[in-house]
């Protein structure tokens, strides 16, 4: 029950009313004047106050005024003298809840108290309700915020590119997946791009028709399994596209597109096709390798014998030519030219076949402990005459700190031979005849017992386009002279050793190939 403060200067009234109110269940405190009443009011948590109007010192109106200032919700009931309507009205104006005329009857008291109780309860309920409402708004706001953040994260974290636009095609959402696919930053896209710049053509048309109101409805989603978009630098990016119109009620309010990046998948597919092709070539070649080698042997044998015969009769022909230049010159020079053609082409077939064999499964690497410097030296020795014939200086610069290492000497020999031969060709093809051409072969020790070979030339060099293609199958810049397999074979051999070939080149300046091979210890070195 509520605490009730009773203020009256008449002791008798205080006593009678206290008894009556206490028996009604109120917790009653009393004061004999306004001053005492106010100080009790401030000390005790009182919810209903009853005060007499006419008191010495602070009168009832003053008490009422001050109490309302302290707590506007307080229920104050005033006692007025019989017929004193003026002060009753004044009290009500100042916020009193009710007035009871003296002498105070039980019934009037009871009614006034009941009403006060009801008003208090109503006020409390209103207060609770307001509080609840505020809490609910706060909770709802937090929930909305949480959901927004969750959805934002969902969009941002998606691997797929997600783009959303308003009904005019202006970009509203552009996640990090979209940044990767298109190459624009989110800001760039939102500032300067439009759905037209990003969506593939077909869904773009459909989307535009609906958003502009030309068409009423469409399928819920457009899906294009295999299409492409144009990225920032004009790169054509293969994507799987799915997208649709966003509706607010019946009205189209925007569009959304999901882009799945297919670049990696496409690349893997191409690599798979390439490796299957290569495996097929390898198996075919391995199957006929023996026959091919025998035929080549026959061709080389034939060349040897004709050369032999030419050498033995050559001096005779030469002399006859000198003595009588007009008679035998033509047939003889044609014979020499034709024979050179045959020899050159046999060498070409031989190079191609040996490259193919090296690239096929037929050649199995045989690892043994050997000196890399010796292999490099041998290669330089073999290429020396070709270099000299073309006014190219061939330099060998081998580090003495390179120790013996487990490798396949025949393979590395072929690999270096290909690189040096390429380097010499790069000088031969160089249009800048002012240069003093050189090809330099170096060796140096690498970490953990490995070795690095470098083949450096100052020949014609390569542009980026050529550089990107040199390790692909059957690519050659040498026209009919190249097999298009040399570097592929060199790379395969380096890879078999667990190593790699690296190339640096500048058009017109020259090229450096670096072959790095890791060191392997022991008899059972595995590659």
């Amino acid at each position, binding site marked *: 029950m509520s605490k009730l403060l009773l203020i009256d200067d008449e002791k008798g009234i205080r006593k009678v009313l206290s008894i009556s109110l206490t028996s009604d269940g109120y917790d009653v405190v009393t004061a004999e004047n306004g001053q005492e009443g106010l100080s009790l009011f401030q000390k005790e948590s009182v919810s209903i106050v009853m005060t007499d109007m006419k008191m010495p010192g602070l009168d009832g109106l003053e008490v009422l005024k001050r109490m309302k200032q302290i707590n506007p919700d307080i229920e104050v009931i005033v006692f007025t003298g019989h017929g004193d309507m003026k002060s009753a009205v004044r009290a009500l104006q100042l916020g009193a809840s009710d007035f009871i005329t003296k002498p105070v009857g039980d019934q009037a008291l009871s009614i006034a108290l009941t009403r006060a109780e009801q008003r208090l309860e109503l006020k409390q309920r209103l207060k609770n309700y307001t509080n609840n409402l505020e809490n609910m708004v706060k909770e709802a706001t937090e929930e909305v915020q949480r959901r927004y953040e969750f959805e934002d994260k969902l969009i941002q974290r998606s691997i797929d590119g997600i783009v959303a636009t308003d009904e005019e095609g202006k970009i509203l959402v552009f996640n990090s997946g979209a940044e990767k696919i298109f190459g624009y930053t989110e800001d760039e896209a939102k500032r300067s791009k439009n759905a037209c710049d990003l969506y593939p053509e077909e869904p773009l048309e459909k989307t535009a028709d609906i958003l502009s109101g030309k068409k009423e409805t469409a399928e819920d989603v457009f899906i294009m399994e295999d299409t492409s978009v144009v990225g920032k630098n004009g790169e054509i990016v293969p994507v799987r596209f799915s997208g649709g119109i966003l509706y607010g009620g019946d009205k189209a309010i925007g569009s959304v597109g999901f882009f799945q990046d297919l670049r990696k998948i496409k690349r893997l597919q191409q690599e798979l096709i390439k490796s299957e092709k290569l495996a097929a070539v390898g198996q075919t070649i391995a199957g006929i390798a023996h026959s091919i080698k025998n035929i080549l*042997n026959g061709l080389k044998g034939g060349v*040897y014998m004709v050369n032999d015969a030419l050498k033995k009769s050559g001096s005779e022909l030469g002399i006859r030519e000198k003595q009588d230049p007009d008679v035998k010159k033509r047939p003889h020079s044609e014979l020499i030219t034709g024979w050179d053609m045959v020899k050159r082409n046999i060498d070409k077939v031989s190079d191609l076949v040996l490259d193919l064999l090296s690239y096929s499964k037929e050649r199995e690497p*045989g690892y043994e402990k050997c000196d890399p410097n010796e292999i490099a030296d041998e290669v330089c020795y073999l290429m020396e005459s070709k270099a000299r014939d073309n006014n190219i200086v061939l330099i060998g610069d081998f580090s003495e700190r390179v120790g013996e290492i487990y490798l396949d000497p025949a393979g590395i020999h072929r690999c270096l031979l290909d690189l040096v031969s390429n380097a010499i060709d790069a000088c031969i093809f160089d249009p800048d005849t002012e240069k003093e051409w050189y090809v330099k072969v170096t060796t140096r020790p690498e970490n953990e017992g490995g070795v690095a070979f470098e083949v450096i030339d100052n020949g014609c060099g390569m542009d980026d386009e050529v550089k990107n293609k040199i390790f692909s199958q059957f690519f050659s810049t040498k026209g009919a002279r190249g097999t298009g397999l040399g570097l592929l074979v060199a790379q395969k051999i380096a890879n078999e050793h667990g190593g790699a070939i690296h190339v640096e080149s500048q058009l017109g300046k020259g090229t450096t190939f670096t072959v790095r091979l890791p060191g392997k210890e022991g008899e059972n070195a595995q590659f």
Partner: protein
Amino acid sequence: MEKKVLIIDDDVDVRTFASSVVENSGYKPDIAKDGEEGLNKVRKEKPALIILDVLMPKESGIKMYRELKTDNQLNDIPVIVLSGIAKRTFLRSQRALAEFGGQTVPEPEAYFEKPVEPEELEAMIKKLAS
């Protein structure tokens, strides 16, 4: 008397070519078309050097090589193997035969994979036949 070099190969082109190289190296060539004929000639003629193919009809070079190297009378004649198959494959088959119960035989004095460079063959003939 001129030293003889015996060439054993079923391919007539190889026999002709190798004969020419042998002549240019300063030796007298002799020829056989398979391992069986080859072994007979080796026993009869006692050549200074043998040039041996591997894949041949009747008796193959693999078997003939074993017979040469396990015969006390013949095993000091140097052998150049000239074949379309890789050296490793040849050695592997020799190892397999050794494990099968036979003796282990030494590696050939020289091994050339076809196609051989005539100059290299010539140099090796001169080195081994002298």
